[in-house]
């Protein structure tokens, strides 16, 4: 027993470690450094309250003479424990020697009772607040604490539960004015016969100071790893959700499996559940096999990352895992065996993991899998930590009070797997963006192609329209204006230049031109408007010739094929008819009528001239009639001429609907009927 001298406050908080954090390190580094810093903080003994506490590092120990001291009593007489007491250094490890369990009455395992006695002696504990903090008691059994013969504390849980490294006890020693701090502390440990256990050092003193010490340790050693586990499991569940929708990517399921195994595996480290709903043997079985299956899953995970397959190893691991799982199924009597042999099994698992991780590393390196390498390195570290704990636990070479590293492995694994999944996720998003971009690009390219082909089509169409228009105008000039001008030229050349005749020819030319221009005005579907235009143009000439025009048109349906090309045909046909009347008859009156006949519109130009014989007409002005017939044919129209003494009736029948072929090319043969009188 010694009073720990006070030291100036100041732990590793001020270490130069944290200065490196801001220099462009990866988030993983920062994460690990932070973890390390936290671990240092937790490991560092809190010195601030050293004055108010006594660090108990020595005790006396005795083994109950009967082996087991019987059921726990609320009070004992310290004087009855006669010894022999042996002085021991804390932490103190007691080694058991394995022998087949001698079944105690009632089928319960045989227990051995050990007593530890601590006397604070010269150290004056503060009244009201005196407290005790036992850093750790680890045994296959239970622990109870007496103060001056009165029971102050008994450990909860089953025998097996205390095997695990739970934070040890914080016990108030005096809580009331009439409860002076005890002068002597007795710690009773009932452990399974033959098992190994240990008792750590203790702190006694002012409650606040002792509790502060206890709380730091609780937080650093248990709560942080617990939070990391919870986070790991949460991400694992997320991953499981992803897998549910993407069955083709088993890596997400593997991630969930590994997270689940990792958390289960370390469940016994976490404070919180003293009374598991699971019997002890099953709990041990569960935690042990969690590690087994984690190894199998890890191998598969590696294979997916580096894409190099070792079916034999996978199969071997699977077989071993199944065997191990089945072999360790707890039968009641096997419990003690499990407790003893599980360390051996862990040894085997360490070996298997070494193979899996080593091979994973090698394959990842050969396959240049960055993620595989990171994972292998991380797991190598984890393996080292696990092995360290395993060795420590089994050989007791290492201080019982030191912190187990395994719980922090969860954090490291969480970071590693999180990193791998994060990279895959980010890469997938990037891939989606790329795909979208390339889709957009190909869409734009296709659009451009379409636009180009439309442009070409338009160009072709425009050219065709121009060609058609040119052909139409050329034809028209040839038939009309051109031939009229030729006639005029011939008349003038042959010296028969009768001024009036030339003027007449030129006037006809101008009329022709006007009609050509009129035909280009959009009359849309209005036949009457077209006829009106014709009258407007020819009216003065008829007037000049002294012919009265009777305009007796009736409303007619719209002609949807009345485009400029067709309009000009109609204008020319009727113009020819009027010209014929002016030139070849002595008519005094022309009557223009319109009406509906046989699904078409009939335009009739009737005069009161003496009439003519059609054959003669054909002989004389054959070209005029020929032009009329040709034009009528082009628009699917019919002509009828009836001549008698009363006059001549010229009829133009126009279909209401033009056949598409005729509309396009004017190739439909027209039925032109010239009926001689």
């Amino acid at each position, binding site marked *: 027993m010694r009073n720990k001298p006070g030291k100036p406050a100041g732990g590793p908080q001020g270490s130069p470690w944290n200065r490196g954090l801001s220099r462009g390190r990866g988030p993983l580094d920062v994460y690990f450094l932070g973890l390390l810093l936290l671990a240092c903080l937790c490991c560092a003994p809190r010195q601030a309250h050293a004055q108010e506490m006594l660090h108990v590092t020595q005790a006396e120990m005795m083994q109950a003479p009967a082996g087991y001291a019987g059921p726990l009593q609320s009070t004992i007489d310290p004087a009855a424990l006669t010894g022999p007491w042996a002085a021991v250094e804390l932490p103190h490890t007691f080694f058991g020697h394995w022998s087949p369990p001698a079944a105690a009455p009632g089928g319960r395992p045989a227990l051995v009772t050990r007593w530890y006695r601590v006397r604070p002696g010269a150290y004056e504990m503060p009244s009201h607040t005196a407290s005790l903090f036992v850093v750790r008691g680890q045994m296959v059994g239970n622990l109870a604490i007496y103060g001056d013969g009165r029971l102050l504390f008994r450990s909860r849980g089953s025998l097996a539960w205390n095997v695990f490294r739970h934070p040890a006890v914080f016990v108030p020693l005096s809580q009331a004015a009439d409860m002076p701090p005890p002068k002597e502390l007795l710690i009773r440990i009932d452990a399974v016969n033959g098992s190994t256990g240990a008792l750590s050092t203790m702190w006694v003193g002012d409650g606040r100071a002792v509790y502060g010490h206890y709380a730091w340790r609780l937080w650093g050693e248990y709560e942080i790893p617990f939070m990391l586990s919870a986070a790991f499991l949460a991400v694992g569940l997320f991953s499981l959700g992803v897998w549910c929708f993407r069955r083709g990517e088993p890596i997400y399921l593997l991630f969930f499996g590994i997270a689940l195994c990792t958390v289960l595996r370390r469940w016994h480290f976490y404070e919180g559940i003293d009374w598991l709903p699971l019997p002890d043997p099953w709990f041990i079985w569960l935690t042990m096999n969690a590690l087994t299956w984690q190894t199998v899953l890890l191998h598969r995970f590696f294979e997916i990352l580096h894409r190099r397959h070792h079916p034999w190893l996978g199969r071997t691991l699977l077989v071993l895992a199944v065997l191990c799982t089945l072999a360790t199924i707890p039968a009641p009597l096997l419990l003690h065996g499990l407790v003893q042999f599980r360390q051996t099994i862990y040894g085997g698992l360490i070996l298997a993991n070494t193979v899996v991780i080593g091979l994973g590393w090698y394959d990842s390196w050969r396959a240049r899998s960055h993620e595989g390498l990171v994972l292998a390195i991380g797991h190598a570290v984890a393996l080292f930590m696990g092995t360290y704990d395993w060795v420590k636990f089994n050989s007791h070479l290492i201080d019982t009070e030191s912190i187990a590293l395994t719980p922090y492995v969860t954090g490291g694994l969480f970071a590693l797997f999180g990193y791998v999944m994060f990279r895959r996720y980010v890469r997938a998003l990037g891939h989606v963006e790329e795909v979208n971009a390339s889709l957009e690009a190909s869409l734009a390219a296709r659009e451009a192609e379409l636009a180009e082909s439309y442009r070409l089509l338009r160009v072709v169409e425009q050219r065709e329209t121009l060609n058609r228009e040119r052909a139409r105008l050329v034809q028209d000039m040839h038939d009309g204006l051109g031939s009229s001008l030729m006639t005029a030229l011939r008349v003038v050349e042959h010296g028969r230049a009768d001024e009036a005749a030339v003027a007449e020819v030129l*006037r006809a030319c*101008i009329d022709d*031109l*006007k009609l050509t*221009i*009129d035909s280009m*005005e959009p*009359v849309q579907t*209005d036949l*009457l*408007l077209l*006829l*009106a*235009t*014709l*009258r*407007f143009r020819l*009216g*003065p000439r008829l007037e*000049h010739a002294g012919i009265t025009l009777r*305009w007796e*048109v009736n*409303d007619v349906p719209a002609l949807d094929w009345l485009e400029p090309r067709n309009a000009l045909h109609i204008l020319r046909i009727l113009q020819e008819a009027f010209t014929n009347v002016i030139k070849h008859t002595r008519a005094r009156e022309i009557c223009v009528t319109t009406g509906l006949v046989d699904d078409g519109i009939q335009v009739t130009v009737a005069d009161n001239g003496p009439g003519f014989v059609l054959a003669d007409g054909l002989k004389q002005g054959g070209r005029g009639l020929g032009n009329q017939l040709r034009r009528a044919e082009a628009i699917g129209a019919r002509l009828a001429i009836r001549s008698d003494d009363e006059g001549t009736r010229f009829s133009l029948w126009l279909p209401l609907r033009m056949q598409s072929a005729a509309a396009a090319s004017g190739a439909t043969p027209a039925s032109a009927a010239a009926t001689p009188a």
Partner: protein
Amino acid sequence: MQTATAASPIHLVLVEDDVYFQEALRLAVRDAADIRLTGVFNTRAAALDALDGPPADVLLVDLGLPDGSGIDVIRAAQSRWPGCAVMVSTTFGDEAHVLQSIEAGATGYLLKDSSAPRIADEIRSLHGGGSPISPLIARQVLLRFRGQERAGAEAPKAAADTAVATEGAARGAVLSERERQVLELITKGFSYEEIARLMDISRHTVRTFVRRIYAKLEVGSKAEAIYEARSQGLLSI
């Protein structure tokens, strides 16, 4: 407009750079005792200067002048010679040019290949309040007032009786039902006499309708110009 009599002949001013047409017009007018050609101008500038002088009764303008458009002359004449009837001389009477001129204020047009007696007749007719209108132009005028749609024709009878609801209505110029009827008959090719008979009105009334339509076109185009100017911020009224 006063009716021309032998005592007060129609004063005609010609703005035209084509000497052959100048000659043709001189010949046409020489034979008409009631028309006196008081001025012939070759350019837009000369014509605009002439507008400062004593006003004529009829102004005959060619659109394609060597130094600019005859449209400017028509516009200027509208304000400076308000009592003068403006006529456009054109080769084909194509609607684009004629409509533009009517909107500028012209009330008639003359085809350049008309015979001499007809030229004199047209001038007399215009001076007397008549305005020729071709079927194609009548149709354009109808469209102009109706907008692109035929909504006006299908509007309720009551509304149609007073006026055709039109695009022009918004701008202040609306065709009356009778005016619209006249225009429609013109597009079917009927002459003024025939229209008068069909509508049971006098020929003079038909001419009045047409003259009014011309005026409305001009008003419409002016309102349009003002509307445009206002919307572009050129006018602060």
